[in-house]
């Protein structure tokens, strides 16, 4: 293994200080002279035709500067799948119909937020109510209300994957099981609600500060919906308080802020309330997952048939990608010689589901992993042994999808078993306690280009200076995950500099090099990291040339940048400081600064991703047999994320994943009544609190990903998947209640306990 100086070290993030002391500037902190405050009028009905909107009273309210409806805006639909315009199904403001409670109908900009709120109440909308549908089954019924004319059966996207011969596989199976799982919607619950500020300059160009994961995507889609040229729109991402997939699309307030800034000539800000976020915001897809798996007696997997219906809500949002990915995740972790997947994305009259941490994996893997645990029991094989028997290994080929270029799955399983003392605890826990396992595999960025970018997937510009410093410019977006720090570490390592020598400018579409697809799918470290290395290598070639000339080095000498110096490898005296080397190059170029650009686009990497991460997790729970309440006592995690760039940040990702998955498994859900979300505050939307967090112990399995920057790959997103199935198995181990329908609530457990007792009584 290569020795690193900066990479692999615990580096505290510089932004942590700013955030902890309240100095970091988020979008809502931005105040511009003459700025107006925007508010959105949302549909109170789940499904209705808009007959008429009268804004005259709102317009007449003193302090109101602008009111717009769907009639006022260009009729341009948007959506992230630009390559397939038929999937773009949303207008910034509803034009003909509303499709969920919260659908945006009109927008107001006023001199203060209270006036804007008052004006909303003066807008009169006449609706003609249409029959709504709220679940997949009703939406698919013959004669169900049609939500989008373009999809008469309410199915907007389907996807198939098939390899091997599934029927023949099952015919050879000794043991086949079929199960249907249902999983529910949860909120990203990022602590910074969505916020945006738009300014229009005298030439009519737009600058948009916005809380986003994808500045480049916002730039492109905003330009098209405003019918402007891409380069006339500048998107800047200030500090962002989390996204988790919920901030990667153009959203109505971004469009409305820009559109109204153009109309009024004044800056316009929108900041959503928590109630708006919870009542109408994007959420994780609910799914109905039918899965059939076949095994040999000895536990060898022979076939899998997976059918998933996604409850997409009123619009596609990121649903097409989720439909694609949940089928791919269904094929991961184990060697399925025969595999078939059918996925369909179904419209319902609920707030649209979008991308959320794991992007199809938490749902799909809940089914995979629960079914593995059920099969292990019936086959009489230890669940971890059954997994090891079928585990993917390095070099495995998933037909049409990828070759697994690095894989520490078996080591993760063994390490998780060792750390948790699995064998002993499985047999000898106190009554009411249980232990269970769940696993994950995840992508390190997508190789698909449904956005149809005309640029490389990631880009970096590196400028170096004779004072020994460097400046990294990248469109990669740090939304709290720490990419500014990680990319700085990669550059420092490559150039042999220290963290303090490097300045980073990121995520400004007018300043940083084109382009970057944004922060999602765990793509940034691998893709932007590779772009940084590409740029740094070009810089180094120039520096090596100058030093080589200065010392008249034999051309066979290898050279390196290390410890702030540039020198011949093995002959450190034949060299000079980094700054001196830069000065020499600059002199040789007669003043032209030393600048290089690097790019990365995955090519020849199959259909899904250049690299996969793997991991295993064990959960230990105690269940109160009278109240049905679950206490998660401890979680052990062993994971394979390639070279770890910043162990401290990786640990933070793990803690955050456990927190998010704990809520998914046990306490978080939307309480809905006829399409209306009832629990719209953190009092009643039950995110686990600090006191609910279990102890956690983790180990990182040593692997090296050849496609990753310095061997790195995904960390922290895949980790959100194993926890729910591990807890579900531990609850089963403790109580005999098997959860196939998330979340695992006390009521379900108590009912399960009663059923178990009844079964036992019958048997005896």
């Amino acid at each position, binding site marked *: 293994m290569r020795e690193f100086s900066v990479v692999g070290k615990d580096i505290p993030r510089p932004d942590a200080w700013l955030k902890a002391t309240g100095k970091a500037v988020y979008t809502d902190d931005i105040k511009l002279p003459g700025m107006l405050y925007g508010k959105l009028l949302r549909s109170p009905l789940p499904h209705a035709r808009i007959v008429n909107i009268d804004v005259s009273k709102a317009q007449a309210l003193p302090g109101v500067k602008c009111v717009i409806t769907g009639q006022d805006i260009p009729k341009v639909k948007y959506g992230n799948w630009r390559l397939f315009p038929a999937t773009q199904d949303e207008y910034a403001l509803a034009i003909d119909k509303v499709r969920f409670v919260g659908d945006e109908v009109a927008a107001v900009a006023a001199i203060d937020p209270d006036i804007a709120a008052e004006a909303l109440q003066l807008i009169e909308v006449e609706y003609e109510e249409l029959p709504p549908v709220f679940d997949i089954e009703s939406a698919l019924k013959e004669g169900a209300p049609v939500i989008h004319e373009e999809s008469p059966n309410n199915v907007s996207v389907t996807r198939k994957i098939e390899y091997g011969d599934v029927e023949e596989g099952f015919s050879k199976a000794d043991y086949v099981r079929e199960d249907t799982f249902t999983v529910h919607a949860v909120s990203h619950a990022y602590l910074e609600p969505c916020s945006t500020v738009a300014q229009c300059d005298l030439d009519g160009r737009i600058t948009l500060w916005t809380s986003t994961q994808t500045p480049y995507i916002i730039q492109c889609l905003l330009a098209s919906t405003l019918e402007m040229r891409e380069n006339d729109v500048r998107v800047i991402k200030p500090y962002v308080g989390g996204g988790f997939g919920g901030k990667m699309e153009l959203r109505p307030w971004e469009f409305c802020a820009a559109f109204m800034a153009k109309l009024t000539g004044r800056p316009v800000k929108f900041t959503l309330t928590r109630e708006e976020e919870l009542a109408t915001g994007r959420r994780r897809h609910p799914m109905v997952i039918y899965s059939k798996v076949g095994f040999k007696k000895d536990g060898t997997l022979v076939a899998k048939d997976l059918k998933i219906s996604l409850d997409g809500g009123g619009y596609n949002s990121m649903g097409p990608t989720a439909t694609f990915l949940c089928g791919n995740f269904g094929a991961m972790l184990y060697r399925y010689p025969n595999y078939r997947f059918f996925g369909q994305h179904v419209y319902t009259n609920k707030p649209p589901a979008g991308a959320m941490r794991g992007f199809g994996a938490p749902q799909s893997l809940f089914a995979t992993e629960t079914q593995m645990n059920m099969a292990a029991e019936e086959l009489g094989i230890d669940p971890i042994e059954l997994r090891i028997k079928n585990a993917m290994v390095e070099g495995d080929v998933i037909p049409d999808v990828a070759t697994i270029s690095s894989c520490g799955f078996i080591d993760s399983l063994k390490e998780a078993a060792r750390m948790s003392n699995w064998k002993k605890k499985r047999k000898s826990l106190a009554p009411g306690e249980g232990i269970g396992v769940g696993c994950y595999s995840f992508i390190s960025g997508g190789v698909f280009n449904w956005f149809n970018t005309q640029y490389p997937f990631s880009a970096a510009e590196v400028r170096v200076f004779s004072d020994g410093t460097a400046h990294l410019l990248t469109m990669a977006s740090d939304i709290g995950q720490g990419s500014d720090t990680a990319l700085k570490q990669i550059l420092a390592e490559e150039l042999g500099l220290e963290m303090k020598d490097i300045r980073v400018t990121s995520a400004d579409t007018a300043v940083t090099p084109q382009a970057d697809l944004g922060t999602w799918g765990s793509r940034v470290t691998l893709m932007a990291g590779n772009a940084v290395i590409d740029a740094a290598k070009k810089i180094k070639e120039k520096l090596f040339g100058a030093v080589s000339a200065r010392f008249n080095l034999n051309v066979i000498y290898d050279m390196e940048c290390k410890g702030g110096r540039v020198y011949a490898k093995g002959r450190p005296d034949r060299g000079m400081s980094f700054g001196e080397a830069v000065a020499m190059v600059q002199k040789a170029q007669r003043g032209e600064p030393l600048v290089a650009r690097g790019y990365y686009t995955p090519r020849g990497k199959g259909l899904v991703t250049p690299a996969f991460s793997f991991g295993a997790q064990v959960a230990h729970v105690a269940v109160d047999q009278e109240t049905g*309440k679950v206490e998660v006592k401890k979680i052990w995690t062993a994971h394979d994320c390639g070279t770890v760039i910043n162990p401290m940040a990786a640990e933070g990702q793990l803690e955050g994943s456990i927190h998010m998955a704990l809520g998914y498994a046990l306490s978080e859900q939307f309480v809905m009544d006829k399409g209306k979300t009832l629990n719209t505050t953190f009092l009643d939307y039950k995110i686990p609190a600090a006191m609910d967090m279990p102890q956690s112990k983790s180990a990182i399995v040593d692997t090296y990903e050849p496609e990753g920057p310095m061997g790195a790959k995904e960390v922290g997103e895949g980790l959100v998947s194993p926890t729910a199935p591990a807890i579900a198995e531990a609850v089963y181990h403790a109580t005999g209640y098997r959860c196939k329908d998330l979340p695992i609530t006390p009521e379900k457990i108590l009912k399960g306990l009663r059923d178990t007792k009844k079964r036992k009584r019958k048997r005896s």
Partner: protein
Amino acid sequence: MGLPKFNYVAPETVQEACQILEKLGGQAKVMAGGTDLLIKMKHGALRPKTIVGLRKIKELRKISFRKNQGLFIGAMALLEEVASHPKVKKLYPAVAYAASQTATVQIRNMGTVVGNICNAAPSADNIPSLMAFGAELIIASPNGERRILLENFFKGPGEVNLNRGELVKGVLVPPPPEGSGVSYQFISQRSKVDIAAVCVAAMVVIDKGRTRDVKIVLGAVAPTPIRALEAEGLLRGKKLADRSIQKAAEQASQEARPITDMRATSEYRRLMVAVLTKRALLEARQMALAS
């Protein structure tokens, strides 16, 4: 939403506060910590023209104990102060515990026990244990003071027996009888920091092996906190055996009138009343026997 506009007055004596309340009637709202009031105002649920802040009335911050009179908790005593008060912890541990389990650290350092009572949420953490101790409220008005048993104070969710010009000065908790124990139990969706979906307090007084007195108070299972009188009747004068505790717990569950809402279903609440009543009685018995 921001706060709507309102006037703020801060009287320096109870008398002055009562006079203001008398004058303004329903247009005024009293504020102790404001942790419920201001939220309701932000959500538009309350629109008082005037807020009468009690912060300047020093005597209301008091927590005091006298052997013959018992414990007095002033209207401005913070939840955290009650939770950590040595006398409260020693003599009224269930009162201290309920205060310590209310909301979060930040809110406990703003909000008050009496405010939690006057907010009159059916799920209020601090009401059941105080009711179990037989607490009374001391209510001031321009014409003098009156006392009312805490259990007679509530009319419905958010509604209390207060007349125009009246102000709750504090809560008076009688000295705990010999051989008594009081326990507070609650359950919520999250493990610790959460609003109660069901809460129960039980008080028992054991004299020569028999239950001389018993109170069972149920919260969040009716429009107001209620006594489970028939369940109490099953225990009064009897030996407090495990089996009778179980029976009383089941009876209490029958007396509850829970609804289904986003925090729990009525079925689950009913089941939990039995579980929590049993646990409260068991703990109260243990405390009584140890006293």
